[in-house]
């Protein structure tokens, strides 16, 4: 999986793009992800991946690689994002663990 394996039309790509640009939408996504996922027309496979924080599955479905660490930050927060931060650990656990 890499930047050549992206499904540019995947609804989750649009969702991640927009929630980072709009704090009100980000807060809404935090509080009620199901309604935001419905709004963007995510497939059931995508929704299930989000529900289970399955970053690897989102990658397999075609989420852009650049968004993958950002997914970990959407979930765990982005402050002080060092290698042992909650977001980095989530990324390692979900994407790199065998």
């Amino acid at each position, binding site marked *: *999986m*890499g*930047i*050549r394996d*992206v499904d*540019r*039309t995947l609804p989750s*790509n*649009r969702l991640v*793009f*927009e*929630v*980072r*640009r709009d*704090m009100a939408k*980000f807060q809404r996504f935090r509080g009620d992800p199901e309604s935001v996922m419905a709004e963007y027309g995510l497939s059931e496979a995508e929704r299930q991946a989000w529900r289970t924080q399955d970053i690897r599955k989102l*990658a397999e479905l075609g989420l*852009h*690689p*650049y*968004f*993958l*660490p950002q997914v970990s*930050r959407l979930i765990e*927060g*982005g*402050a*002080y*994002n*060092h*290698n042992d*931060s909650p977001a*980095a650990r989530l*990324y*390692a656990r979900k*994407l*790199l663990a065998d």
Partner: protein
Amino acid sequence: MAEIVAVTALSHAPGLTGWPDRASARERQNLFDGFNEVGRIVRAAKPDVIIGIANDHLLNFPLSNVPDFCVGTAAHWKGPAEWFRDWLNVPPYALPGHAEVARTLVREGGRNGINFAFSDELMFDDNWSVPLKFLTPDYDVPLVPIHMNCIVPPLPGPERCLEVGRTIARIVRDSMPARLRVAIMATGGLSHDPGGPKYFDVDEEFDRWFLALFEDGDPARVVREATIERMMAAGDGGTTELLAWIAALGAAEGRRARTICYEPSRALRCGMGAMVWDMGPGP
């Protein structure tokens, strides 16, 4: 005839401002010293405007519509975009743009084979927020940001980026106001892999090879050897940001570059480096 008075290329990884304390003291000091030195060199050249060239991190252009190069035409900029503030640990800042320079780039680019997109509503993340903190910490030099596509294939390749850099230099020289002093600042790279298996690693061998290639300074060799494939092998998700450095090489028009600092920083999840070109009389 305007003049390019400084050209630099440097990394912009968020850890440099967001979690620098997680790097070793030696690594941190070397990078702070190096980035501050680049700032001194750029400010000593007394630029009236900085033309920046950097990857858009899928912040301004959705995957439905990604321009290869987009010139920021606003008279004022601000950053960092709100969601990125705590990540970057950079307080909100504002700085002037330069609409006249930006519009000249778009207009003359169109006459010289570059279909620049343009926008006065660009959001800034690490691409500008990290380097500006060191280069112009008072945010007092106008910036014309050029957001480029480095991560949504097909990418503008090395040859195209070199050509775009050369064309920018020609536009500065031929179409901008006499005595205007222009600095070029490319940001991105070196090896890193956001979203990939090497997220917590860097490719020091690639980075040192790339820096040596640029110090050698032969544009034909850079185009031949610094291929997209080679960059992607060093970190699929981000190393192609070095395409911005190739545009800077083009803008420097054959002058020699020197490395100011380099650290293969796993703590910052990026090969961190900076170069400047000696902008004395041309070769």
